[in-house]
């Protein structure tokens, strides 16, 4: 909330990196899959109330 200053000078030289993004999509999806596996392992119960 108090920090709105965005790009540094170095960042202004950067470009959008497609390979990184696509690898990221796969990694991110995998991480969500792991999240739901973790939640199922920790929380699954047929008798929870």
């Amino acid at each position, binding site marked *: 909330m108090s920090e709105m200053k965005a790009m540094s000078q170095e960042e202004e030289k950067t470009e959008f*990196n497609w390979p990184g993004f696509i690898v990221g999509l796969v990694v*991110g999806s995998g991480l*969500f899959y792991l999240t739901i596996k973790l939640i199922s392992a920790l929380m699954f119960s047929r008798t929870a*109330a």
Partner: protein
Amino acid sequence: MGVSRRNFLKGLALGGTTGYLAMAGVSSTVMKDVFVPKPLVGDTDIGMCKSIKCTVVSETSWFNNARVVQDMKDAGGLLVNQYIIPWTNTGVKEGYNGNNAGGYSTLIDIEFMDGTKKKMLLDCGWNTDWMDVCFKREGVDKMLDNKEIDLLFVTHEHFDHYWGVESVMKHDPGIRVIVPKGFYKEGFDLLKGANFPVAHVKNDFPHTGKLEVRESGKVHPIYPGVASISFDSAIITRVLGEQALVFNIKDKGSVAVTGCCHMGIISFLQEIKQRVKGGDKIYGVQGGLHISPFEDWDPQYDDLIKAIPKYGIEVMGCNHCTGYLTAEKMVLAGLPVVQGTARFKSKKKLYLGNGDQIKFG
């Protein structure tokens, strides 16, 4: 760090966040069925019995709704331990000799396939003066003296279902008792003989028979065609756990018999379907369904009334904490609610009352 490696990592971070959120969206919608556990199909064979007859010994747990709510509020609200609430036991016009406390208890006569019979008592009420009168009216006192009642099945530790235990123990202290997992120390102490003067509850006749504590997550057999299922529900006034009965009646289907059904009748019916072999054929329901006991309402109860017809229940013997408003709406919705006779201080004929009987099978 080189610019290209930094760019790659930046792309990775953007893609990672986007991928996480996208996978979240996809798996929680279009791919949901891949991940969500499938419901079980009931595979526990509980056997079969010929018929049961339920006699409503008492379904009037108390006589003045506003008074019991005020007692809880004055003590500090619905989370206060029931054993330290000074329940009003004098000066209540509608009460039994001025005492607001009544109690819930049902006598169940079971006929087995070979023609033999057994009796069991579901819950033992609250006010022992009132329960003594009710037991005498239905002959339960003599049945207990003669050891004709095989089992006291306590659905949950609530004051109106359990605190009349002295009225049972003074006739048959050796009776077999089953309670659900979740009973607190005070509950066990009361069974063994204890006094809680603030709450006006005591038992001077220690239990000497067999005590079983039944946990959730499975079907517990009792007799051929008779079993119980427990639930871990937290309930007001510091009570935990409730159990209910399921009967498999030949050529008819399952009958669910409850005390208060705090877990919800649909949850109980679902458990029967998913755990009991042949449990998807529901024939009847008897007992308290805890929907509008204080004549309050919630759209969730309308959801229930709209959903319950699809369970195909042929006989609805609901009473006690079901609530008159619920029964009224069920009748309007065309559900087969069995009417009562409004005797012995039961207020309306809308459902089964004190002294009424219902047979399944």
